[in-house]
């Protein structure tokens, strides 16, 4: 069925409005970051990139970025390992407690993150662990691993178990099956799960607030500076964070594209 001209026009305008509604606030942050004035006021009188320069030179900023990056990278790697095996247990294998597992694993997503953060903080305290960015990694994992697992599980559901059986039947051992069949087939799921894990950790505020202790991640710092001691460094770092995320997504696409191209090249010469 083809939509009428009127419908299409209405939908077009509606779409534009939605996008504007969603992204205009971000644009205003962008403007704030290039204002030379110390306090934000529209219209901006003098544009300047001085805050970006300061951000790049500031040791606080590089420390913040390093902390956020460390947390996000570790969370991504660990959650992917859990997600890979968890998704196989979730979607592929019949075992006694599968039903319980499928429900339990969703539980952390349903807790408000502030409650989860508080609970974890109290838990760390009672164990006598001093919170640092490493405890934040644990906290992020509690919340992010289920999401990563679900993303990989969706891929695992569309997986014909006969593929592994066939490989085995032709002489492949358990590790070979994993390397040659299971892993490559789950790869698209793993790439998107990794991307999600990184971005969710990178942008997470409530869990980090409770569990980083003396360390500070980028979102935490942004919040602290909003509450007291605002400077245009806040929107500047905000924009840098968004651009960083965006670059990561581009990088992931490039990676997938490269893998595909590489495979085709290998096929051609094989």
């Amino acid at each position: 069925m083809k939509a009428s001209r009127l419908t299409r026009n209405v939908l077009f305008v509606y779409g534009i409005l939605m996008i504007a509604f969603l992204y205009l606030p971000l644009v205003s942050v962008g403007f704030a970051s290039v204002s030379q004035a110390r306090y934000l006021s529209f219209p901006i009188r003098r544009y300047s990139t001085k805050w970006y320069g300061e951000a790049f030179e500031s040791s606080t900023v590089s420390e913040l970025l390093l902390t956020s990056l460390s947390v996000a990278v570790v969370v991504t790697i660990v959650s992917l390992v859990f997600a890979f095996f968890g998704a196989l247990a979730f979607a592929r294998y019949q075992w006694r407690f599968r039903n319980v597992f499928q429900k339990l694993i969703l539980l952390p997503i349903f807790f408000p993150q502030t409650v989860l953060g508080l609970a974890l903080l109290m838990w760390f305290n009672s164990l006598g662990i001093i919170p640092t960015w490493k405890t934040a990694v644990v906290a992020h994992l509690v919340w992010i691993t289920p999401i990563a697992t679900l993303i990989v599980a969706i891929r695992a559901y569309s997986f014909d178990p006969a593929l592994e059986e066939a490989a085995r039947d032709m002489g492949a051992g358990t590790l070979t099956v994993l390397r040659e069949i299971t892993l490559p087939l789950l790869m698209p799921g793993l790439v998107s799960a990794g991307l999600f894990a990184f971005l969710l950790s990178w942008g997470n505020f409530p869990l980090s607030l409770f569990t980083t202790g003396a360390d500070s991640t980028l979102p935490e710092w942004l919040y602290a500076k909003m509450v007291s001691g605002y400077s245009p460094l806040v929107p500047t770092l905000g924009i840098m964070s968004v651009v960083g995320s965006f670059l990561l997504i581009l990088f992931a696409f490039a990676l997938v594209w490269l893998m595909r191209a590489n495979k085709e090249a290998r096929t051609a010469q094989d």
Partner: protein
Amino acid sequence: MNSSPFLSLRGVVKSFGNFTALDRIDLDIKEGEFFTIVGPSGSGKSTLIRLLVGMDDLTSGEIRLRDQRIDDTPANKRPTCMVFQSLALFPHMTVGQNIEFPLKLRKEVPDRRRARALELLDLLRLPQSYYDKRISQCSGGERQRVALARALAFDPEILFFDEPLSALDYRLRKTLEKELKDLHARTGKTFVYITHSLEEAMVMSDRIAIMKRGKIEQISVADEIYGAPVSRFVAEFMGEVNLFDVTVAADGSVSSDVLSSRSGVKLVPAGEEARGLLMVRPEYVGFADTADAFDFTMSGPLHGEYALGSRIQYEIETPAGMVTVEKLREDRRTVSEGETMTVGFNVENTHFIDEAS
């Protein structure tokens, strides 16, 4: 060909909890044979093939290949290979990579792998250009051939098939049935094929085993299973059939409450009295134009007439029950529903199923 059994099963049992999926299966398959196991869903045929390739463990019993026990050998160490119902072609590999997969596992050098894959493409009548195609670019029939090529690349002692044609349309299935039979002849390999389709079994097989609820009912060549089934189940499974309750006396004379026969009609004497079923296939039932045209005669109103393409089927409601008659289209009769018809058959076209045995 070897005279001692090639693949032999003795007392093979497989249970899942309280449910016995396979109940003491004994079976011998000869080298180079095209052996088909037929049965309705739930008869245990898929369970059996999974045991044979090593994907499940048996509860008890033993499987021997060339007199060596293989039931403890895991699937990846057995010299057998299976073509799956879903074909299980690896979607992330090309046609060539799929075919070479078993060779790669054996650490064959790329040049020899490629040469063998191209050879197999030829054997399966696929153009060599398919080597670089993706699986998603192949049609159903082409995928079937790729799966076969891959299994042959493995060079198994026995090639197993788990209903690989069931998802294809009729015409393609017919073509591939013939190709499989031809491939069997050219490769000389032992094929063990599983299907629920009797037609598929009859077209291709040297011998057929009929399974019912975890047991083998009958093993024989197609003609014998069709013409001389051992039970009502086999008779009915092998297509349309007319069965009548009869008692056969020691001298072979037939008596029945429902069937009247010409005097002096006798079956091959069994030596003692037996109760059972007298079977006649619909193509052997004819229209009786004269009173004594057949050994057995019955009449009743026509219940229905069905066109089956090259053949026409008539159902006649007789005192002996519904009798099915099948005629070639060229022998079609113009009759209307409800019209009384007299039909009959001769004793030499019947088969007696002794229900006591």
